[in-house]
Every structure is written in structure tokens, then in C-alpha cells.
């Protein structure tokens, strides 16, 4: 076994260790903790590259290498042993490289972004802990280990969203994120337990006895639950619920936009590139379970259908909301939700390679966009409303250029950008889906909307005239001489440039002409080349994207916004729909009035029950206090007193009797004599017989 397989644990362990050490560092050792985090991440990146090159050298079956060890034994027999372990296969290798690379860049970027923050050390502690846990999710060969790391990831997400906890909105957003994902995680945990009861193991791959391998899968698919569903499908859906929570799919998407309250590097790392992708990764990891079918059946598995529909609905749903948002990060957040929907759809219709390709390309360009947004926010003095920006092109050329690349990649601008290839792949797979064409059309609509809202955002932020501070300028001028936006420091722009290059280049590893990425993941060789319908599809999706870009330009660039509070052209067009979108379909309010209201009502009921229980408990308590009082009374007044009295009487009697023994022997003799006389008299007079 190769040393990299044996020592794969080092990759997550290093950032974890860095987090542990920097948690103990005093707050003033800023450089130390930052260099610790960045250094550990860089070493992890190098190790990941080693792992990646190792996997590159393998082919076919040998490309999956596992290392399992027994954690502890909780019951007799083989199934009582809890096994942990890690797996190195193409999926892991790709994710490792992506997470560590993007992570390192974002760590570097945070150096500049968080430079003014007094809790710098804490920030890097959490960031490193997150990176370690995320890498743990990636390498895990056991659902249990994956779940453990999954929960740590959720925890750090909570901690980092609420990093500026003094803002009530940030604290609320952190709680919302934590609780919402918890809903999915409960289902996930149920799925894990069920899976364990069915297959007796939680290891994915274990030389034939793992739960993702043929024997266990065949056993699970053969059984049906009471609802008529195969057990494997039910378990897969439960696990998918965990992914829905983590990846912000409908209906659990509500936390992700609010999570933008956290610092921007956090949004880039956790809520765009890696953590939210963990759900997609999870589905890819348990894909054998998702796609298993009874023998002889050739239908599309139910679990994959659900994945596809949820993904497709999310893709359009979130993209349409993004059209009407004004917060630069919120737009990106909804865009992330929408793109995650694409990934899910890709997994559902096209398999692991399709979904994962979009995951990887998206991670790069979305991290780029978020970091660009962070740079904009930084340069505009913490302004996040795109209506208050405008004309930043002149002030921040590097940010503008890289942001534009990211935006074109996200919109899927033809040929040159990575987003185009990965999105096209998904659309192509959706086009060939045998059940329904609707996901395909939803994907097309989503692509149109994506191009539209990204154009809107870029135009409002970077083009036109500066709108910010026209009113306030006179007030601020007195104490703030340089109110103008400024370009960000090099620590922030260099990662942007690197990511921009990636956002372009990365697409070429998975084009239909050279499907290296797909072959690498699936281990098979697909025919390369453009078939006729692929070209047709590419043309039509290009047309859609260009239409979206044009519409965005038509609405927003033709007549640039002059004032901050100018009415959005879409609002003048259709105020009702715009209002609906602006308020996110009232989903938050819907939850407020259904789930949360029910929860609050239920809490009240519980409180009431609790009050009654308290009363009953108190009553029982009083009864027992009364009983024990009676008991004490009996004890003290009856038993004790009676005993004392009888003791006193006995003593008295003893004293009385002891008078008889007065020490005068002749008295005794006298008594004996009298008694004898009496005895004689009795014998003579009464006892003749």
C-alpha cells in the first residue's frame, strides 16, 4: 500500500492541529495563528497533490484504495466493531485538491480582508477547523466518520456565520443555519442507523463487505418497506435529506442567503465553494446506493428522480429570487443555491461525473465571485447594497476584471469559460433523461435567469456612474478625506487572479472533445468528440445565455441608474412579480407562520404541560412532606416517648426493688422466716392435698 494512502489522514489532521494550537494562542499572536493555518493548509494542498498524482497513476479497480481500522467494539461479533477509515479514489482526490487549493487561496485572502478585525486569531482558528473537518468529510470511508466531520463542518459554519455575533442579525442567521441544517441531519442520521441495521457496516468500501458494495446493496434493494418502497431507496432518500439541508436545496434553502451575514471569506469558502458542496459530494459518495435497482429492472431509480426534481426546482427557484435582490452577497448566495440545484440535477440525470464537474468548476468561479464581492465591499467601506455602488470599474480594475471573468463563467458564456462546459454537460444529460423533459427546460430557464441577474449585478456595481454617497458626501467629507472606493491590497487581489485563471482553464478538462474529467471519475473511456445533438444543444444554450446577457444589458445598462433609490425597471414592468421575487416568494414568512408558528405553539403546549407537571410534582412533594411529618410525629411523640416512658418505669421499678436489698443480712433472714411461716400456714390451712 502506498504511503500516501496510509497517511491520507494527515491531510485533514494538519488543519485540525493548526486549529487546536491556534485556539490556545493569545489574541495578539495574529501572525503566528494565520501562518499556522495557511501553512497547514498549504502542506495539505501539497499532500493532496501527491494523492492526486497517485490516483492518476492507477487504473480501473485499483484506483480505489482504502484504509480501514477498528475504532472500538461495542458488541460481540464482527458487526459489533465500529470501523473508521479513509478512501482514496478519483472522487476523493479531486475534492481534496479543490478544497485545499481554494482553501489556501481564501486563507490568504482573509489575511487582507480580516486585517482590521480584532478577533483575527479566532477567525483563523475556526477557518482551520472548518478546513480540517471538510477534508475529513472528503476522505471518509465510513458514513460514521463522514457524519462526525459533517457535524463539525456544521458547527464551524455556525461559528463563522455568527463570527460578528454582536450583530443581532448575524447571531440569528447563525442559529437559523444551524437549526435548518439540523432538520436534514436528523433524517441523515436516521438513514445511517437504518443502513447500519440493514448492512451491519458503515464503511463504504471494505473489500466486498462495505455498504456501497454489491452484496450489501443487493440485500437492501431486495427488501421493501411497508410503504412499498425498496429499503435502499428509503435509506437513500433519508441520506439525501441531509444533503438537502447542507446544500441549501428547496425546501431547506432558507438558511443559505442569511448565512451571508458572516465575513465574506467565510461565504466564499464555506457557503460557496466547499461546505454547501458537501451535500452534492455526499450524494456522489453514496451514488451506488442512490442508483441501485432490482435485478432486471431498467427504470430510473426513485431516489435519483427525487434528486433530479429537487435540483431542477431549486435551480430555477433560487435563480428567480436572485433577480430581485439588491445585496451583492445575497445575489451570489441565491446563485449558489441555484447552482447547487444544477449539481443535484446533474447527479440525478447524468451520474457522478456530471454533477461533480459542475461542483468543481463552480467552486472556483463562485469563490472568485464571492472574494470579488468581498473586495468590492472592502473597497466601498462595508457597503453591500448594489444600488449604492456603480462605476467601480475605474476604481478597482483588478477586481472588475476578475469579477467579470467569474460572472461570465457563472453565466456560462460560450466556449471560453468553465461554467459553460459543466453546465452544458448537465443540460445535455437532462436532455437525454428518459422520464421527463421538464428538468431540461427548467435548467434552460435557470441558465437564462443566471445570465440575466449576473449582468444586472455587474452592470449595477461596476458600470455607470457612482451613486454612493452623493447625498452623504458633504457630511462625510469633513472627517473622511478619501471616501472614494479603493482597490484592495495584494493579498486579496492575487488569489482573485489565480482563481480567475482557474475559472477559465478548468473547463477544458471536461469538454466533450476531451472528456478527461469524466473518464477520470468514472474510470471508463467515453468516446470523445462532438456529436450533432451536442453541438445543437451547445448552440441553443449559448443562445439562451447571450439572450440573458442581452436582456440584462437592455434593462440596466441602456439607461444607467442615476440615483440610489431609482425604481428597478423590472418593478415598473411587473410590480407584482417583482415584489414576489424581492420577498423570496414569502418562503421565510410562510415558514414563520407554519413551521415556526407550530413550533412556538408546541413549545407553549409543552410549557403548559410542564407547568402542570410542576404542579403535580409539587403536589406529590407536599403529600410526601405531610406524610413524613406525620411519620416524624409518630416517631417522636409515640414511639420515642412510649419507649422513654417504659424505660423510666423499668428504672423506677428497679429502684423500688433495689430498696429490698438493703445490705442487712438479718432482714433477709427475717423475710425468709416470715415467708416460711406463711408457707406453713398456707400448707396447713389450704394445701392439704
Amino acid at each position, binding site marked *: 500500500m502506498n504511503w500516501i494512502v496510509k497517511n491520507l489522514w494527515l491531510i485533514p489532521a494538519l488543519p485540525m492541529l493548526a486549529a487546536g494550537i491556534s485556539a490556545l494562542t493569545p489574541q495578539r499572536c495574529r501572525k503566528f495563528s494565520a501562518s499556522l493555518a495557511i501553512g497547514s493548509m498549504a502542506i495539505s494542498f501539497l499532500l493532496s497533490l501527491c494523492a492526486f498524482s497517485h490516483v492518476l497513476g492507477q487504473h480501473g479497480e485499483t484506483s480505489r484504495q482504502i484504509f480501514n481500522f477498528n475504532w472500538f467494539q461495542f458488541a460481540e461479533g464482527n458487526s459489533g466493531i465500529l470501523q473508521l477509515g479513509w478512501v482514496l479514489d478519483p472522487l476523493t482526490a479531486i475534492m481534496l485538491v479543490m478544497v485545499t487549493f481554494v482553501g489556501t487561496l481564501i486563507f490568504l485572502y482573509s489575511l487582507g480582508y480580516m486585517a482590521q478585525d480584532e478577533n483575527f486569531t479566532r477567525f483563523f482558528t475556526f477557518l482551520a477547523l472548518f478546513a480540517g473537518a471538510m477534508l475529513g468529510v472528503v476522505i471518509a470511508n465510513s458514513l460514521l466518520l463522514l457524519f462526525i466531520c459533517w457535524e463539525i463542518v456544521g458547527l464551524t459554519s455556525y461559528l463563522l456565520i455568527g463570527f460578528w455575533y454582536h450583530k443581532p442579525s448575524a447571531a440569528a442567521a447563525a442559529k437559523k443555519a444551524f437549526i435548518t441544517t439540523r432538520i436534514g441531519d436528523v433524517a441523515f442520521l436516521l438513514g445511517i442507523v437504518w443502513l447500519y441495521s440493514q448492512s451491519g457496516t458503515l464503511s463504504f468500501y471494505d473489500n466486498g463487505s462495505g455498504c456501497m458494495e454489491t452484496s450489501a446493496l443487493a440485500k437492501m434493494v431486495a427488501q421493501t418497506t411497508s410503504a412499498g418502497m425498496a429499503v435502499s431507496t428509503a435509506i437513500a432518500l433519508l441520506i439525501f435529506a441531509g444533503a438537502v439541508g447542507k446544500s441549501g436545496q428547496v425546501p431547506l434553502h432558507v438558511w443559505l442567503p442569511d448565512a451571508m451575514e458572516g465575513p465574506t471569506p467565510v461565504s466564499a469558502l464555506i457557503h460557496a465553494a466547499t461546505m454547501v458542496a458537501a451535500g452534492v459530494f455526499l450524494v456522489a459518495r453514496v451514488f451506488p446506493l442512490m442508483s441501485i435497482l432490482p435485478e432486471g429492472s431498467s427504470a430510473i431509480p426513485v431516489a435519483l428522480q427525487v434528486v433530479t426534481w429537487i435540483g431542477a426546482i431549486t435551480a430555477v427557484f433560487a435563480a428567480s429570487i436572485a433577480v430581485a435582490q439588491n445585496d451583492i452577497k445575497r445575489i451570489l448566495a441565491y446563485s449558489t443555491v441555484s447552482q447547487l440545484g444544477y449539481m443535484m440535477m446533474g447527479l440525478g440525470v447524468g451520474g457522478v461525473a456530471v454533477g461533480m464537474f459542475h461542483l468543481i468548476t463552480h467552486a472556483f468561479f463562485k469563490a472568485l465571485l464571492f472574494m470579488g464581492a468581498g473586495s468590492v465591499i472592502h473597497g466601498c467601506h462595508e457597503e453591500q447594497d448594489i444600488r449604492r455602488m456603480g462605476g467601480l470599474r475605474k476604481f478597482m480594475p483588478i477586481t472588475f476584471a476578475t469579477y467579470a471573468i467569474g460572472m461570465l463563467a457563472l453565466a456560462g458564456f460560450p466556449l471560453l469559460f468553465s461554467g459553460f462546459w459543466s453546465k452544458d454537460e448537465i443540460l445535455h444529460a437532462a436532455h437525454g433523461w428518459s422520464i421527463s423533459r421538464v428538468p431540461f427546460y427548467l435548467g434552460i430557464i435557470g441558465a437564462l435567469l443566471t445570465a440575466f441577474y449576473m449582468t444586472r449585478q455587474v452592470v449595477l456595481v461596476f458600470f455607470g456612474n457612482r451613486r454612493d454617497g452623493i447625498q452623504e458626501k458633504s457630511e462625510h467629507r469633513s472627517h473622511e478625506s478619501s471616501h472614494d472606493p479603493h482597490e484592495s491590497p495584494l493579498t486579496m487581489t492575487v488569489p482573485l487572479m489565480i482563481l480567475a485563471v482557474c475559472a477559465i482553464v478548468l473547463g477544458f478538462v471536461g469538454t466533450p472533445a476531451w472528456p478527461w474529467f469524466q473518464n477520470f471519475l468514472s474510470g471508463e473511456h467515453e468516446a470523445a468528440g462532438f456529436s450533432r445533438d451536442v453541438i445543437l444543444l451547445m448552440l441553443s444554450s449559448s443562445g439562451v445565455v447571450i439572450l440573458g446577457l442581452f436582456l440584462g444589458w437592455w434593462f440596466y445598462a441602456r439607461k444607467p441608474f442615476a440615483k440610489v433609490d431609482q425604481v428597478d425597471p423590472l418593478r415598473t414592468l411587473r410590480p407584482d412579480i417583482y415584489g414576489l421575487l424581492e420577498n423570496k416568494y414569502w418562503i421565510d414568512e410562510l415558514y414563520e407562520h407554519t413551521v415556526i408558528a407550530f413550533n412556538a405553539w408546541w413549545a407553549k403546549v409543552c410549557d403548559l404541560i410542564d407547568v402542570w407537571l410542576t404542579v403535580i410534582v409539587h403536589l406529590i412533594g407536599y403529600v410526601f412532606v405531610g406524610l413524613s411529618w406525620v411519620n416524624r410525629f409518630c416517631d417522636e411523640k409515640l414511639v420515642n416517648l412510649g419507649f422513654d416512658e417504659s424505660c423510666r418505669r423499668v428504672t423506677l421499678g428497679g*429502684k423500688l*426493688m*433495689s430498696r*429490698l436489698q438493703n*445490705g*442487712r443480712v*438479718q432482714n433477709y*433472714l*427475717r423475710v425468709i422466716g416470715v415467708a416460711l411461716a406463711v408457707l406453713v400456714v398456707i400448707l396447713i390451712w389450704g394445701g392439704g392435698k
Partner: protein
Amino acid sequence: MSPLAGYLLLSAFLFAIGLAGAVTRRNAIVVLIGIELMLNAANLNFIAFWRFGPNPEALTGMMFVIFSIGIAAAEAAVGLALIIAIHRHYKTANVDDVNQLKG
């Protein structure tokens, strides 16, 4: 009056004298003498009941009395020894002064 009744009367008389002496006198030696008198009254009873009883040939009464006299001698010796010990300790032989053994 039959000879037995006469002996018994004598014996009762002796017993009464002994009892009176043992009860009324203060000197321990005199008390001891009274006790000896009562013992001898009992011995006289033994002899009388044997002599005038149904079977005077068997020497049972005689045997009783000889044992009784032997025991009386031993008793007198023990009693005198006690009295001498008491006298050494308390410098008196008055039984009324020796009354510390009481409740």
C-alpha cells in the same frame, strides 16, 4: 402425747430459738450459733422421723444426720473464716455495720 410429737416439739422449739437468735442478735458469731441451732433442730427431726418411722432398721436417718453434721462443721468453718475476714476488713463483727452490699 406420743414420743414423736415430743421430739418434734423440742425440735421446733430449738429451731425457733435458733431463728430468733440469728435474726435478733447483732454479733456475727452469735448469728452463726443461731444458724447452728436451727441446723441441729433439723438433725433432731431427721433422727426422730427415722426412729419412729416405718423402717427403723435401715440406718438411713443416721446417715443423713452424720452427713448433715459434717456439712454443718464445714459450714461453721467457712462461716467463721468469713467472719474473721470481715472483722479484719471492717474492724467489727456487727452485722448491721456490714451492709454495703445493697441496691
